[in-house]
């Protein structure tokens, strides 16, 4: 026989449908969202993984200052280190030999000429010739006649042979000594001789590009920088979301996300590097899933940066300088992350030595696993789903507690029935199973509907959210077993155990205790003393004490919601705040970084722009913990610090004069991000050399635009071993037009600062706003459920005080005001907790990223984040009041049933 108690479940659901509807909708939304995120995420990651194979993603890339010779490429491919010592020896010997030989020739020439001259003069003297002109003529004649034979004779002399041998030996010894010294230094710097090196065989591919200006609407102003690649590249290829690869010199394919952001459509004409192209394809490059212009950018920029593909012929016709970028693929794929790092390090050693011996220079080196542009998106996608699922679990735990409290109240209410059933022979287990059924059934309903929505509607939402942010390839639905586990098994387990704990504890009482309504396990030996307030005040306090467990869950829920509110309000605020301060975050309207301070003719680069001011700059690294929140986000390496050398009396950087030697000012962003203070010592190091520089922090310069250190230009040139007149670029109020583009490495304007925020705003703005309103509804739903429980629990008392003659308004105030007080206090406390927690969370998150911006919340948002929650509560209070009015008088007089 089936347990007849089962029939209570559907009836309970039907009789209290509004409560269960709220819970089920809540669960469906949460589970659906997480399921959608996971399905979307798994589908997206599957497409990305597939793309890596099919589109031949590199294992890393490096840029050289000049095009590599076939021999250099062949040697790099072997993965072996070049014999740098021998290279220096050969080079040194060659130079030394030339020098010694030149010195010997010079000496011999002088000696032979002197000997001939002396001979002629002696002869002239013997003949009594004194006319100097005649003597000189005689000397010239003698030199012409005897020089060759004299030289030959001298060279054959034993004396010459031994002297020149000695000279060569000395020179060679000096070279060997110098090379040995230098080699020791270099090998120590790069760890070339540490015995850990293993050759890493690679295939090297050309992946040259040019950074051209892009004018999307042909209005003559630059809209973005476009990195143009050739369509015939054999590595790092692109998939096409729409259209095809360019076939003629006037066709181009550009990034889908960028096109979307700028409203560029298929068939539109855009101007790239002054040349007009027709857009024939919208693509996603496998190594540019996010449009990070530089690997150290805080954020990608799908507005101001683009990647594009043109035919090789069109590529050759563009004018911006070619970046000699080479991509490589390991012949033997590293097995894991540790091996990945070792392999990359070994390859870098080989690369450094090979480029050195071929007189080339590495401009940049980036193993793929540290590449933000290909790792940021998958890592963010993964992070999003885990963040969402954690959120979901917290909410399900809250719901589970609400359920547990509801059931606990039901058990109290049904205590005589439970007593009777236990007296009749029902076991605790049977009753526990019975009371557990409802939460489990409701969770199952939520999970089934939620998953169904997850695979349909919500998956689309998640995928389109990713498409809004990233340059992802087209994706196809993949069944996600993780989604099923995380959205069904985990919520069920949570619901099951939280309820099991509460119910089993509750059912520990004896049948007799249930029959007697003697339900508290711990009996207060004395009544709780309460202050001598007014009767109603004391009554309210009693209500609060009676409903303590409900209030605990309410407090937890409200604090949690406030935390989320701080996130929902604070993130856009922080972005706005950072964005609005962008103009202040740049020293000059234009900051020109030059390729070198001299042009190709060796002349110092000058400008006629009157506001231009020279500065020096260098990028060093500041060590930081890489233990990550999310691997793949941020460049994964140490923090990149720009060290500036500022001209005296600068009109752009307000740096007081008289900075002591080895001292620097730090930007406020640097100080805040790493919690530094004046007097601290910082050690910065070069990226590809083992040089370190130690500085004392002298003070702060109010600059939030980046992680930077400042010193005067003279000290800069001394510290970094630069020539006294050397500089790196110009600050300027106006655009500089008289410097050749070939000599400009980069121009930084306020747009570059605000691109971070506009991108984040674009990616997150929509979802954050939705989140705000979802949270308000969530808050209201939570408070509704808990307030309902409080009133249900007190139905009999409410009915009794009605009988005694209390008015509905008085009863309302008795039961609603305590909850209101708790909600208001918790909302404010929760807000404070949330606010400070977010500041810390932001700091931790920023440590992982490159660059910095601080958490900020506007006063209006602070007020709103509390007011919204209270508005939610107000609605609930009205519902509560109606509910109290409807409680019938006979409730108190009726049977226990």
């Amino acid at each position, binding site marked *: 026989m089936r347990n007849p108690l089962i029939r209570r479940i559907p009836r309970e659901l039907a009789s209290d449908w509004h409560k269960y509807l709220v819970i089920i909708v809540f669960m469906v939304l949460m589970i659906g969202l997480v399921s959608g995120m996971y399905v979307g995420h798994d589908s997206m990651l599957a497409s990305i993984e597939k793309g890596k194979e099919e589109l031949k993603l590199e294992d890393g890339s490096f840029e050289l200052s000049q095009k590599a010779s076939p021999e250099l490429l062949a040697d790099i491919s072997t993965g072996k280190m070049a014999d740098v010592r021998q290279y220096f020896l050969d080079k040194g010997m060659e130079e030394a030999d030339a020098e010694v030989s030149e010195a010997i020739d010079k000496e011999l020439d002088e000696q032979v000429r002197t000997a001939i001259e002396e001979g002629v003069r002696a002869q002239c003297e013997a003949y009594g010739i004194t006319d100097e002109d005649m003597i000189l003529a005689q000397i010239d004649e003698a030199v012409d006649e005897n020089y060759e034979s004299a030289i030959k004779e001298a060279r054959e002399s034993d004396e010459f042979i031994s002297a020149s041998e000695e000279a060569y030996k000395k020179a060679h010894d000096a070279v060997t000594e110098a090379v040995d010294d230098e080699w020791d230094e270099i090998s120590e710097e790069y760890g070339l001789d540490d015995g850990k090196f293993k050759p890493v065989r690679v295939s090297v591919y050309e992946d040259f590009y040019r950074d051209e200006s892009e004018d999307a609407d042909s209005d003559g102003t630059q809209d973005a920088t476009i990195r143009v690649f050739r369509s015939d590249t054999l590595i790092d290829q692109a998939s096409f979301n729409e259209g095809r690869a360019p076939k003629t010199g006037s066709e181009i394919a550009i990034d889908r996300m960028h096109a979307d952001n700028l409203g560029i459509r298929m068939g539109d004409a855009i101007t790239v590097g002054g040349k007009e192209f027709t857009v024939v394809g919208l693509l996603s490059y496998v190594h540019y899933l996010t449009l990070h212009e530089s690997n150290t950018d805080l954020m990608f920029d799908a507005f101001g940066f683009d990647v594009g593909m043109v035919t090789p012929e069109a590529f050759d016709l563009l004018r911006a300088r070619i970046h000699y970028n080479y991509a490589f693929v390991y012949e033997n794929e590293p097995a894991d992350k540790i091996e990945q790092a070792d392999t990359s390090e070994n390859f870098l050693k080989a690369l450094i030595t090979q480029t050195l011996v071929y007189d080339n220079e590495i401009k940049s080196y980036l193993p793929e696993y540290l590449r933000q542009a290909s790792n940021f998106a998958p890592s963010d996608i993964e992070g999003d789903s885990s963040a969402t699922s954690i959120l979901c679990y917290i909410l399900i735990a809250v719901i589970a507690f609400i359920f547990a409290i509801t059931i606990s109240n039901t058990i109290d209410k049904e205590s005589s029935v439970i007593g009777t059933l236990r007296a009749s*022979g029902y076991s605790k287990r049977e009753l526990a199973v019975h009371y557990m059924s409802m939460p489990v059934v409701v969770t199952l309903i939520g999970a089934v509907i939620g998953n169904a929505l997850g695979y349909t509607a919500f998956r689309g939402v998640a995928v389109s959210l990713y498409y809004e942010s990233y340059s992802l390839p087209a994706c196809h639905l993949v069944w996600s077993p993780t989604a099923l586990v995380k959205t069904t098994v985990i919520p069920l387990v949570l619901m099951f155990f939280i309820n099991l704990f509460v119910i089993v504890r509750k059912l520990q009482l004896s049948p007799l205790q249930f029959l007697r309504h003697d339900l508290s396990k711990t009996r207060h030996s004395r009544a709780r003393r309460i202050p001598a307030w007014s009767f109603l005040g004391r009554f309210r306090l009693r209500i609060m004490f009676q409903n303590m467990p409900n209030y605990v869950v309410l407090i937890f829920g409200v604090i949690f919601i406030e935390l989320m509110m701080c996130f929902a309000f604070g993130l856009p605020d922080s972005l706005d705040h950072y964005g609005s301060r962008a103009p202040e975050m740049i020293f000059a309207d234009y900051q020109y970084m030059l390729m070198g301070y001299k042009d190709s003719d060796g002349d110092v680069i000058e400008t006629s722009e009157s506001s231009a001011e020279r500065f020096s700059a260098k990028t060093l690294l500041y060590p930081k913990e890489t233990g990550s929140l999310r691997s793949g986000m941020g460049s994964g390496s140490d923090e990149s610090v720009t060290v500036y050398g500022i001209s005296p009396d600068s009109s752009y950087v307000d740096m007081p004069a008289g900075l002591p030697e080895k001292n620097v000012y730090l930007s406020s962003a640097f100080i805040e991000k790493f919690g530094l203070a004046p007097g601290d010592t910082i050690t910065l190091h070069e990226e590809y050399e083992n040089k370190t520089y130690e500085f004392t922090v002298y003070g702060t310069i109010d600059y939030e635009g980046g992680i930077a250190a400042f010193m005067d230009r003279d000290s800069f040139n001394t510290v970094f071993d630069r020539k006294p007149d050397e500089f790196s670029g110009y600050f300027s109020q106006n655009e500089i037009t008289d410097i050749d583009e070939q000599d400009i490495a980069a121009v930084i304007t306020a747009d570059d600062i605000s691109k971070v925020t506009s991108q984040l705003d674009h990616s997150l703005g929509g979802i954050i706003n939705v989140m705000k309103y979802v949270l308000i509804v969530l808050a209201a739903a939570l408070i509704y459920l808990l307030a309902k429980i409080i009133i249900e629990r007190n139905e009999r008392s409410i009915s009794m005080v009605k009988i005694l003659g209390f008015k509905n308004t008085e009863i309302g105030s008795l039961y609603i005001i305590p909850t209101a007080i708790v909600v208001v206090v918790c909302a404010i406390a929760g807000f404070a907790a949330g606010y400070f927690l977010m500041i810390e969370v932001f700091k931790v998150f920023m440590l992982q990223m490159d660059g910095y911006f601080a958490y900020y919340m506007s006063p209006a948002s602070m007020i709103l984040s509390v007011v919204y929650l209270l508005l939610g509560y107000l609605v609930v209070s009205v519902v509560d009041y109606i509910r109290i009015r409807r409680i019938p008088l006979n409730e108190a007089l009726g049977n226990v*049933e």
Partner: protein
Amino acid sequence: MNESFLEIRGLKKSFGSGEAKQEVLRGMDFTVKKGEFCVLLGPSGSGKSTLLNIIGGIDTPDSGYVSIGGDRLEDMSEKQLTLYRRKHLGYVFQMYNLIPNLNVKENIEVGAYLSDDPLDVEEVITTLGLQDHKYKYPNQLSGGQQQRVSIGRAVVKNPDILMCDEPTGALDYKTSKEILALIEDCNSKYGSTVIMVTHNEAIRYMADHVIKLRDGVVRHNDINEVKTPASELDW
């Protein structure tokens, strides 16, 4: 009806401690035979409900023992006690304690579910005169009807002992007599031993065995040679 089925020896029970200690049962001895209709009679505070609870295995004595069919309750674990109640006892309380969102038939089935050898639910409903109400919910029934359902829930298990704690305490005269008649019927029809706690002196006449309690001890332990049917009782 000549074998002693329920045996109670030296049963003592007190509540509280120190000066507030109150002895409710002060050494109680009696036996009840199988199939007997036994009434525990006494005023408020005489210990009759406590005694019933101890017999029912939902309370424990300080000393003495209860033996049913040779099994002593004190030797039983909590699980065994639950099983004992499940297999041998049916409970009827003064308050009916029905499950509000189960109808009459289902409330009775709650009892049937516990038994390995339950009576036919429909037959019990008919016996209790509830056939017209079997799909009604408790809040649609009168007190008397609810108590019938409560009796049905206890009887349908076909229990060895039917424990009734003031079953007519909340009912009017007429309904009380009907309920008593029903219990009488069940006793004769299904052969269950009935132990009924009451303070109503009149009920003693319908019993086989009357145990009168006062101040925690048995004052009278009488066997009725002649029983009066419940329908003829008057008070």
